[in-house]
């Protein structure tokens, strides 16, 4: 009986795959659940929006329909491996994602083994591309981001002692915390560190330690799930120091947590929706907002509003870079696409994208934003580039 069921299922899969001709698949490797589920969904939105604008690609005179193959890596490194295998098994031409560096590294190994290229949208840990020949990415890296925030703490906030709180077992959090610490001590500051485990709810002990140690800056790169708890408890404890984190905190979850409370919350990110200097970006922002407002369930996935998250912009850019690579390769074959990727240059929403020898985008601009406690929106504070840092 079990065999019969298995056979029927296998047939169904085969038939559904064989029914369509002249299509190519782009894999979307993102968390839809778990700690990073909210952010992953926003990144997928950017990719889906890009797909709605460019649903086909022409290769050597033949028009291919593009199909998005979306899998959920559940924000966990062990689940990511089997999610990545599903994509490889589906024979996708290229993979986009993931939100979160740990899952990207875990999936990267599978992609490399089956010579399928992947473009990271917002995974900022250096190891993602450094240790994987088939991973490229369109965002900046943690050593840069950590330095930007350390400079911000030192120069803008005149901080002398920072508390760095990271999540055990999270490559993104631990890595960014480490680079912040490195940069901040190089600038002459002191650092106190703390680590919390996955599923921690009580952050009062960490906040109390920060207060007792006389810290004047609190850096907590973490998932949005932990972030709302940290912000809420910091407000209850009446902390006086600013709380800051990296790109993950640019989310409506943070805005909701900070709204109506007496806390200063900052984050660094890739993109600012109110920046109208680039027409590509301005078009994207207005088009994306309209698209969200037309689709109720897409808007729900965005957190119920039409604020454009930087990760959506990166997802949009990653999709278009993938299209450019497929065009340049002249074939939907993963290996050909991988060979064509290093040569791709693309003017995206988040700036011009070209790759260095590690496969990282040559990007040198970070935006620092503050959560407004009254309006519940992000206020733009400043941009910082590598050149500013000297």
């Amino acid at each position, binding site marked *: 009986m079990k065999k019969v069921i298995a056979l029927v299922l296998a047939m169904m899969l085969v038939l559904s795959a064989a029914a369509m001709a002249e299509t190519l698949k782009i894999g979307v490797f993102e968390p839809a659940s778990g700690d990073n589920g909210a952010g992953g969904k926003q990144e997928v939105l950017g990719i889906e929006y890009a797909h709605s604008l460019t649903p086909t690609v022409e290769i050597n005179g033949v028009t291919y329909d593009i199909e998005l193959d979306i899998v*959920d890596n559940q924000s*966990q490194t*062990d689940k990511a491996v089997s999610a990545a*295998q599903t994509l490889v098994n589906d024979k996708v031409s290229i993979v986009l994602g993931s939100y979160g560096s740990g899952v990207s*590294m875990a999936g990267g190994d599978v992609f490399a083994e089956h010579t399928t290229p992947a473009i990271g949208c917002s995974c900022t840990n250096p*190891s993602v591309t450094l240790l994987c020949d088939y991973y490229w990415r369109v965002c900046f890296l943690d050593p840069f981001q950590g330095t930007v925030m350390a400079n911000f703490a030192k120069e803008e906030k005149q901080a002398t002692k920072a508390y760095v709180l990271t999540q055990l077992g999270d*490559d993104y959090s631990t890595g960014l915390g480490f680079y912040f610490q490195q940069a901040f001590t190089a600038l002459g500051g002191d650092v106190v560190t703390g680590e919390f485990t996955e599923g921690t709810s009580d952050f009062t002990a960490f906040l109390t330690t920060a207060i007792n140690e006389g810290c004047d800056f609190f850096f907590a790169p973490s998932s949005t799930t932990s972030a709302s708890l940290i912000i809420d408890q910091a407000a209850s404890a009446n902390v006086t120091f600013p709380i800051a984190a990296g790109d993950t905190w640019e989310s409506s979850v943070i805005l909701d947590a900070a709204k109506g409370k007496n806390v200063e919350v900052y984050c660094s990110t890739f993109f600012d929706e109110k920046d109208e200097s680039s027409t590509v970006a301005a078009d994207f922002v207005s088009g994306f907002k309209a698209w969200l407002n037309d689709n109720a369930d897409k808007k729900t996935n965005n957190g119920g509003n039409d604020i454009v998250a930087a990760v959506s912009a990166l997802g949009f850019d990653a999709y278009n870079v993938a299209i450019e690579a497929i065009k340049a390769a002249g074939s939907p074959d993963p290996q050909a696409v991988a060979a064509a990727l290093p040569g791709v240059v693309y003017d995206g929403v988040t700036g011009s994208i070209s790759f260095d020898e590690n496969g990282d985008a040559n990007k040198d601009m970070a935006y620092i934003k503050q959560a407004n406690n009254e309006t519940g929106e992000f206020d733009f504070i400043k941009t910082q580039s590598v050149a500013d840092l000297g």
Partner: protein
Amino acid sequence: MKKSTKNFINLVLLALLFVAVWLIERFAGASSMLVTVLKKGAIYAVIAVSMNLLNGFTGLFSLGQAGFMLVGAYTYAVLTIPVAKRVAVYQMYAGGAIHFQLPWIVGILLAGVMAALLAALIGLPVLRLKSDYLAIATLGFAEIIRAIIQYEKLGPITNGSLLLKTYPTFSSVLFPFAAATICIGIIVLLINSTYGRAFKAIRDDEIAAEAMGINLFRHKQMAFVISSFFAGVGGALLAMYQGTLQANAFKSAMTYEILLIVVIGGMGSVTGSVLASFLFITASEWWLRFLDSEQFIGSFQVPLLRSGFRMVVFSIVIMVVVLFFRKGIMGDREFDIEGIAKWCHRRFGKGGAKA
């Protein structure tokens, strides 16, 4: 049937299995889901059988399996990462404290040895505890091991809470099958020896076993250490299969999963655990995956299907097995030529007589 004939037929069946697996890989392609689940299933089989040795054959209710797998996996990964790649892997710890690379086979053996040593150490105090208390204490130890491995001060060795990767892995499905055959073979030999009979005696009645002159503590310790050895080896194989390794994945949920496999297969049946491993992995990773995405039959959208539904169905199936098929697939019987012969006899022999 004579014992030697039976052994011979079982060996032939095993050889046929290897040929079949080789053919599958040859024709289904290395990236197919079938090959993937076969790889993972073989590795889980080793781990499940090692847990069954403890829980099913010796009657020790231990929930420390994930902890020993973790030790094995880390031992393997830490010792076999190529020296040239260590700077990139240990990005926060300046290349780490270890500056040599061991061959993979040594790494796997040491993985088992480390897990076994730790088990010997932990066993001294905890094996004196009874049933539930033993379960909780081993569960607690597994959590402690996880915290120690993630401890920042040990970072130069374990890379703290960051991923380990670039250690040697396997690509052919034959490798995990060969490894599983060797490991399970050794466990079967052990179970059929005098030690194995002593284990079963302890399981059935501790006090009677002691009265028969069986040294309780020594035998429990032995079962615990051997089980942990193979859990460690299984952990190393799992690390090879995943290609990346992080301590965070080895939570108590992983132990529960393996325990469920053992129960589904049947406590006290080696082949049951093996079959259940393959079924469990195939069902959760492959067959039920279609439940996670929207499906259409014609233009009719099947209700309820969306991300997460697969695991709901899967856990309901498990509950049904636990509640209504308490003995699991195999009970305490074995799926070998003798078992098949007996089953045929029961099924058709009796049926024929009645008709």
